[in-house]
């Protein structure tokens, strides 16, 4: 696990259900997702970082300034340069949208290392310019949560904490907000700690992933690494698989295909209208990857990549094995039968060809 990183969170906090015991160094940019089932301690951890809960033994350091050090240093929440988005939007009912957003602005001088985010750009970024004079009761659930995010960003936080911001919304509203969160990640330089138990949010948003289980950190690292572990702790959707960050390279108008490049190779997938140069995420499910020891010819499969076998592990199903393949700088997972492993004589370090039957664009 990363021992560097400008955000340190070290906590020991006894709760009735579990002992929260974490020691993390997190990156200073992008979205760090804290992933775990309910009761795993992720919300408690976020509240401790914010100072809303006071863990007796804790060190919280952000960009060199100490927010808490056991009993000796404890900045109250209102003195910490953070933004917090709660599960329910929790807008102030007695203020309109603009007053809600400006509430934090007038309080406390922006810190020296304030992020270069202006109020107008936040309003623009979240698409709420048309709502400024409405009352919270006149907004939809999705609009309320967007306003809550804007309100948190308006204080120019050095760290944005989001506690399952989509959990109180229905599927339609979630789809409405996810792209906005993606924009925040891409356009702001503020590090975010994002708590969720929803796999699709991990696939869509996470740059760095921390998996919590009953108060303990089970895995932590760049999202593609954690997801492509040989014993994946995090299974997105119905199957294990790798998550690749790709950029759109070329359109094939005749066949409605698009070529995408990633560190380790290229893939062809269905053209969904993304412009060239656009960054996107694709998932390659383990069950859609098969392995050949010689370059396959005369096959319908369009995506064939040269790889090395890194490791092989038994799958949950007795007859299946999970093979971890290194493809340039990227990792793929393949689910094949154990008999195939044996008959192909697969061992670590072997050069093979990965045949990819399907690639799913994450949106």
């Amino acid at each position, binding site marked *: 696990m990363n021992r560097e990183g400008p955000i340190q969170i070290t906590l020991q906090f006894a709760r009735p259900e579990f002992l929260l015991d974490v020691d993390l160094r997190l990156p200073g940019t992008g979205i760090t997702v804290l992933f775990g089932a309910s009761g795993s301690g992720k919300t408690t951890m976020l509240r401790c970082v*914010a*100072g*809303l809960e006071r863990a007796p033994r804790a060190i919280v350091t952000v960009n060199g300034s100490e927010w808490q050090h056991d009993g000796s240093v404890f900045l*109250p*929440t*209102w*003195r910490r340069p*953070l*933004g*917090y988005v*709660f599960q*329910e939007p*929790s807008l*102030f*009912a*007695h203020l309109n949208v603009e007053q809600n957003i400006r*509430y*934090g602005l007038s*309080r*406390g001088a922006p810190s020296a290392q304030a992020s270069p985010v202006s109020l107008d750009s936040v309003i623009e970024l979240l698409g709420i310019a048309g709502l400024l004079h409405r009352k919270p009761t006149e907004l939809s659930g999705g609009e309320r949560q967007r306003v809550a995010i804007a*309100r*948190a960003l308006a*204080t120019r936080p050095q760290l944005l904490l989001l506690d399952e911001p989509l959990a109180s919304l229905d599927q339609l509203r979630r789809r409405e907000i996810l792209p906005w969160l993606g924009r925040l990640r891409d356009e702001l330089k503020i590090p975010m700690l994002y708590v969720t138990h929803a796999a699709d949010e991990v696939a869509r948003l996470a740059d760095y992933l921390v998996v919590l289980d009953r108060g303990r950190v089970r895995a932590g690292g760049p999202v593609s690494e954690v997801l492509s572990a040989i014993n994946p702790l995090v299974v997105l959707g119905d199957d294990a698989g790798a998550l690749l960050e790709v950029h759109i390279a070329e359109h094939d108008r005749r066949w409605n295909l698009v070529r995408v490049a990633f560190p380790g190779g290229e893939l062809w997938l269905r053209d969904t209208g993304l412009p060239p140069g656009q960054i996107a995420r694709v998932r390659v499910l383990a069950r859609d990857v098969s392995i050949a020891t010689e370059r396959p010819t005369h096959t319908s499969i369009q995506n064939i990549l040269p790889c090395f076998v890194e490791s092989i592990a038994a799958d949950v199903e007795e007859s299946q094995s999970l093979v971890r393949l290194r493809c340039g700088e990227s990792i793929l997972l393949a689910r094949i039968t154990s008999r195939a492993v044996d008959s192909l004589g697969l061992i670590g370090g072997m050069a093979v060809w990965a045949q990819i039957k399907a690639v799913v664009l994450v949106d």
Partner: protein
Amino acid sequence: MTSWLNHESVETVLVTLRLAGLTTILLLILATPIAWWLAHTKSGWRVPVASMVALPLVLPPTVLGFYLLVTLGPHGPIGQLTQALGLASFAFNFTGLVIGSLIYSLPFAVQPLQNAFEAVGERPLEVAATLRASPWDAFLSVALPLARPGYLTAAILSFAHTVGEFGVVLMIGGNIPGKTRVVSTQIFGHVEAMEYAQAHALAAGMLLFSFTILLLMTWLNRNPMRALS
């Protein structure tokens, strides 16, 4: 019916309004920290304190008035103290009446405020803290405005309940015209003197007053925003 609102009646009404108005203002200030504490504390003292505050609801007003008379009167412990400090005893004067009213109407201010603070909950205060508001700032800018309906109810109930008080006033006030005589005691006086016409005038006034209060309260609670503008 020429004397239905004579000088004496006007004086009595003014004393009543002054008493109820002053009591209401002091009560809102006094009840706020008590209600806040009751709404937020996890201390074991919560239930005993809540019961103490609610006591005037069940205690016969004459009992309350009696104990106030005993403590505040010239021979009572507080009476002795105030006299030693060069002040008069509080029995049979307006100050004593205010003190009695404060205790008598306390639950009518504390309970609506406590309910309002509980309805506001911790979350808006936590949100305010994450937006750089100090606890005092958050109280003024978030908790108070959100608890506004509770303050309206508390004010109206305290005022009305003080106007209607009788037993305590009779015990501690002494029914002195222009000083401690209020509408309710004067109605009693008129009835004792068989002056039904005067009693009717004041009683009808009280009836109208109470009805208006209830109407106002319902209206304000239904339209909190109209009450603002």
